[in-house]
């Protein structure tokens, strides 16, 4: 599924737009950065409640398709600016990580 399609079908809000035409195959849910660093695959969706600057660094290193900040948490301007600079897509969802990953799984991202 293309990232753009995921965004549309799950009502995600784009707060930093990178490449939305990438293929998304799987995902990872974690708030521990070096766990993500060790386990994320290129093209993953990363669901997290962390919103600080290092999220951008980890996302860019792991080349995830997008970071999805769950539970409607706020992401501050500096982080968004940095993400844009690095071409990282950050999405926002009002659902908690658990529920959102359920929906993603059902939509075929496994």
């Amino acid at each position, binding site marked *: 599924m293309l990232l753009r399609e995921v965004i549309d079908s799950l009502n995600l809000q784009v707060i930093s737009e990178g490449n939305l035409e990438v293929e998304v195959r799987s995902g990872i849910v974690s*708030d*521990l*950065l*070096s*766990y993500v*660093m*060790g386990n994320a695959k290129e093209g993953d969706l990363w669901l*997290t409640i*962390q919103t*600080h*600057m*290092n*999220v*951008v*660094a*980890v996302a*860019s*290193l792991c*080349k995830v398709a997008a970071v999805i900040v769950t539970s409607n948490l706020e992401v501050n301007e500096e982080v968004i600016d940095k993400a844009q600079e690095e071409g990282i897509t950050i999405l926002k969802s009002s659902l908690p990580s658990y529920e959102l990953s359920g929906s993603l799984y059902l939509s075929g991202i496994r």
Partner: protein
Amino acid sequence: MTMDSEVTNKLGPDILSYSVEKVMVRNIPQVTPYWQMRHIKELMRIRRLDGVPVTDDEGHLLGIISISDLIICIENKDLEAPVSKYMTTPVKCLILSKTLIEALREMNRFKYGRLPVVDEEFKVIGVVYWWSLFAFLQEALDTSMVVKKTIPSEGVISYTYQVLGRDFVHAGNASLQMRKSLQQLSIDPKDLRRTGIIAYEAEMNIIIHADKGFLQVKINSEKIEVTAEDKGPGISDVSLAMQEGFTTAPDYIREMGFGAGMGLPNIKRNSDIFQIDSRVGVGTKVYSVVNLIRRLK
């Protein structure tokens, strides 16, 4: 051996737009006009302040008493006099919403060594001293990556980046900068990714666990070597620290998502050669080699 070295030192572009809050000294005793000058003398001596704001009982700014006011008072042998007799009023001050650059301009224009900071109700909440501003700028300069690039003749390129402990504002910058430098070379993306992870985890370990250090990368046609060396507490049991899940990161750092205890194992997994040397009370050195999939020309 020819050596071409270049040091770039720059302040982050937005640093001067920080609020004066970043540099103000907060815990200044509340001095009121009926204090005796004698007490001011003692306060300035003990706290080594060269000026303090004077407020009414509710903390509203009235004036300032500086070392030059005190000198006049001492010349007059008038130390029993109340502060109201010698304080300077009206006084220039800063509203909390002002930025560092505005503070700098004001201080420079009027040659003031200190400016009280007030809230909307004109209550004093702190003082920006020239030295507190200075300390902040100096630290910012130190922190903003000092990048050194050396190209010795045998085809080795090397970059060095400074890393400061507890500096979460710039955290990740050194390894990001390193990755950008490496991207200019035709390195395989897989190698780039491994090197990036090694550098990032090593940088974060310095930031989280140590006082200061540097990150260095050396590239030749066959391999990339990453060295992270710090001055810090060191690690008392390295084999324990190498275990997945082991961490000594305090709670406030874990809340930010660090401290999974996976950094060192991540580094090791991504390295072809991995060495760690640590001495308690001295520091830690992590050395990694990534053998390149594709030889560089």
